[in-house]
């Protein structure tokens, strides 16, 4: 067994109680994706039927990886770099890769939180600023960009992002976004200032508040008209989608990213546990709570989306009614939503040419329900539009954005712990720098680098980071993690450790998944991911008011230099895995050659923990 070296005189920090630890892990796992990615996947992949591949992925991929990460962190009592160095010096690169991914993801994740803050700051006005279009210069009408799209779209793309027409036009730094980003980093810093001491206090609020808000929204949403349409639409299973392999791939990737595996944050959190702790139960709790939260969150989200679709549908039909009423000079309010069809038939038989000339819209509730959105589109466009139609919009907007912020904040803790704990464990911090200053330096560096996301083209760069950093490198890291633990550290040794920690040897389910099923699934997911991504040249959706088909998105190809950066972002974190292995191997060769010339039997060659 390996005893990690500890700084003389200082104890490793520890959690105040078990609840703090569990809440922190749950807070890290439960993030923005649970609210705006899972409901979208449910919707496009046939509702209730999607739960089947999702649960299968959870059982065979999510839980085993989660348990493994928590167990090695708890046993070896170090952050990601230390842990992998302890298992084998050749695997030190794995920890470095985790650390880099955590840092890069933390950069853009906090930018999303800055956007949430921007909307939060604007929710204290009446009327909400995304309800109406601004007037043009001579006050005769509305701005064309806003009129062609919609007030919510205009507020997001123009007032918030001030987005440029393509990624090559950078535009200046948007000062309001810089302010919001600074606020976001200050809020993160104040919670993160002393590591888990302050995180553990903050987590009581940030991890539990979203559940409170979701429940409030659930109660409110179920009383809105059209909510049942949305829920029926969401949960009606369409078993045909199970035949599509992309569904299984998306379920596997969703469970993987949802549990925040391979960031090193979970390893860091469990390293602060006492060694004799039942991490099996912890893993099951965190994994199941994460999935249940996803399902629980989709209910109010879809109830509200159903309400919005219903409102849009009624607006469409009312527009038609007004057209008919004005054209045929029928009495005001004689045509209602109920007798609209009768009237239409009657008018069609009496004067079809006139009806034809009106070019009435075809209003179909299904079309409005189909307008799905995920990610920032869901939060900042679709949901904000729904909120302005609810009575008491300001309250709902404030609640919603505070919920999003606390969901994201608790995930940020994990990202930053994935950076801080390895650095502390490697004693890369000179002892005269207090922890508070060091965490402040981390936040300041991240803020400075993240300023690229406040440019006019910032949203396009964020999409790149999201797609290329937050996906493939994590799959590679996780695959190497499980192979290392199962085959390099040795599954028997791992079983012994767990027996020592929890008092029970892991049963056949864990053995089978750790040894064969999970690595195989990860490999398949990774290969499928690469194949699908490599099929087509990557494109992105640009917002260009001068585009011919505006407000539809202008689909552009990435320029060469941007694509090179994408590849760099995917490769850079994982290149440390072979590099460190090579470096150690070269060091070993050097020592071997030196010893051949100069044998010294008392020399101690291997020192674990050194870089």
């Amino acid at each position, binding site marked *: 067994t*390996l005893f990690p070296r500890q700084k*003389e*005189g200082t104890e490793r920090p520890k959690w105040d109680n078990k609840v703090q630890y569990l809440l922190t892990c749950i807070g890290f796992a439960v993030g923005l994706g649970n609210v705006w990615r899972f409901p979208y996947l449910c919707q496009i992949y046939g509702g209730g039927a999607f739960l089947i591949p999702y649960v299968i992925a959870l059982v065979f991929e999510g839980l085993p990886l989660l348990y493994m990460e928590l167990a090695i962190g708890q046993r070896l009592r170090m952050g990601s770099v230390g842990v992998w160095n302890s298992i*084998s010096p050749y695997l030190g690169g794995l920890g470095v890769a985790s650390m880099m991914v955590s840092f890069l993801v933390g950069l853009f994740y906090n930018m999303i939180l800055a956007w949430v*803050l*921007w909307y*939060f*700051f*604007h929710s*204290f*006005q009446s009327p909400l600023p995304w309800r*109406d279009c*601004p*007037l043009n210069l001579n*006050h*005769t*009408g*509305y701005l064309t960009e806003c009129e062609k799209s919609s007030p919510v779209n205009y507020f997001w793309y123009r007032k918030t992002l001030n987005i440029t027409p393509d990624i090559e036009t950078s535009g200046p730094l948007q000062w309001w976004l810089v*302010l*919001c980003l*600074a*606020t976001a980093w*200050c*809020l993160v*810093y*104040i919670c993160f*200032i*002393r590591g888990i001491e*302050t995180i553990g206090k903050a987590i009581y609020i940030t991890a539990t508040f979203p559940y409170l808000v979701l429940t409030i929204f659930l109660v409110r949403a179920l009383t809105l008209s059209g909510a049942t349409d949305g829920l029926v639409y969401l949960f009606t299973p369409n078993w045909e989608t199970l035949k599509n392999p992309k569904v299984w791939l998306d379920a596997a990737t969703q469970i993987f990213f949802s549990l925040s595996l391979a960031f090193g944050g979970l390893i860091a959190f469990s390293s602060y546990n006492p060694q004799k702790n039942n991490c099996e139960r912890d893993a099951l709790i965190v994994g199941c709570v994460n999935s249940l939260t996803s399902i629980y969150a989709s209910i109010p989200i879809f109830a509200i989306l159903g309400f919005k679709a219903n409102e849009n549908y009624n607006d469409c039909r009312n527009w038609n009614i007004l057209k008919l*009423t*004005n054209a045929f*000079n*029928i*009495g*005001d*309010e004689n045509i209602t939503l109920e007798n609209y069809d009768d009237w239409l038939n009657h008018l069609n038989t009496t004067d079809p040419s006139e009806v034809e000339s009106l070019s009435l819209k075809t209003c179909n509730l299904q079309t409005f329900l189909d307008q799905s959105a995920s990610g920032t589109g869901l939060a900042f466009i679709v949901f904000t539009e729904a909120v302005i139609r609810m009575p008491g919009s300001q309250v709902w907007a404030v609640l919603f954005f505070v919920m999003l912020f606390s969901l994201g904040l608790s995930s940020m803790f994990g990202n930053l712990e994935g950076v801080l704990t390895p650095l502390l464990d490697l004693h890369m911090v000179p002892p005269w720098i*207090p922890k*508070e200053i060091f965490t402040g330096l981390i936040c300041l560096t991240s803020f400075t680098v993240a300023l690229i996301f406040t440019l006019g083209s910032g949203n396009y760069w964020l999409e790149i980071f999201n797609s290329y950093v937050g996906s493939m490198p994590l799959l590679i890291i996780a695959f190497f993690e499980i192979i290392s633990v199962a085959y*390099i550290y*040795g599954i028997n040794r791992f079983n012994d450790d767990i027996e020592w920690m929890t008092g029970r040897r892991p049963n056949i389910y864990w053995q089978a998944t750790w040894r064969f099923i999970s690595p195989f699934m990860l490999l398949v997911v990774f290969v499928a991911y690469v194949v699908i991504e490599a099929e087509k040249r990557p494109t992105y959706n640009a917002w260009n008011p001068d585009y011919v088909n505006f407000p539809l998105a202008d689909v552009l190809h990435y320029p060469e230099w941007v694509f090179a950066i994408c590849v760099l972002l995917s490769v850079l974190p994982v290149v440390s895995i072979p590099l460190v292995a090579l470096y150690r191997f070269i060091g070993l060769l050097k020592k071997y050659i030196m010893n051949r010339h100069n044998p010294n039997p008392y020399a*101690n*060659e*291997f*020192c*674990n923990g050194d870089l």
Partner: protein
Amino acid sequence: MFEKIFFLLCLSTALAEQLCRPEASDGYRVRLSIKTALGDEAYVWNDNEMFLFRATLAFAMRNQISGQEFEVSNIIVCDETPRVSFWFVVTSPQNTSQLVDKESVEEAVRKSRNRINSAFLLTDKTLEFIGIPPTLAAPVNPDTPPWLIVFGLVMGAVGAGIIVLLASSVVQKKRKNDEKPDDEEIDEETRVKTVENSAASEGIYNRSFSDDERFTHM
């Protein structure tokens, strides 16, 4: 005698009808949506309401063109529909067979739009003059955008919190340093000794063996 009066009346109404035609060049169509605006409290559109409309419009014309005394009879209405929409034209008080031009009518309506709306308890949307778009209300622009106020509050609170936390850790460290300057030295020595002792008791831990175990299974 009576025939003459009768003939003149017919002539005037005929003239009036000729002046007011739907899609005439100097008139506008008006459309009211009373039920939409007032719901249950909607009033019935009848001749009295029409009279009020003509009077209000005469008022608007008087405000616009000072000096000319427009009367109710100068506002001619035709083509009434159950929608409650109708066409109107305005005749000049000096010459009842001549119509006031479109621009003046438009200007008059624009100026007094609010008064006309209030007379009927309607809004720009429910009392429409087709062809005269309503001037949109200018948005209220406060000097300090409200979002900056909220931002200032949040940043102020966070900044204060950070300063408090940093100050408290500085105070804590100072207290530790002041209270035990000697004890620490003694503690360090003993700790170092215990570490050395424990290392000695374990023996020289030759890690090369444990590594071999991993690579060569014998």
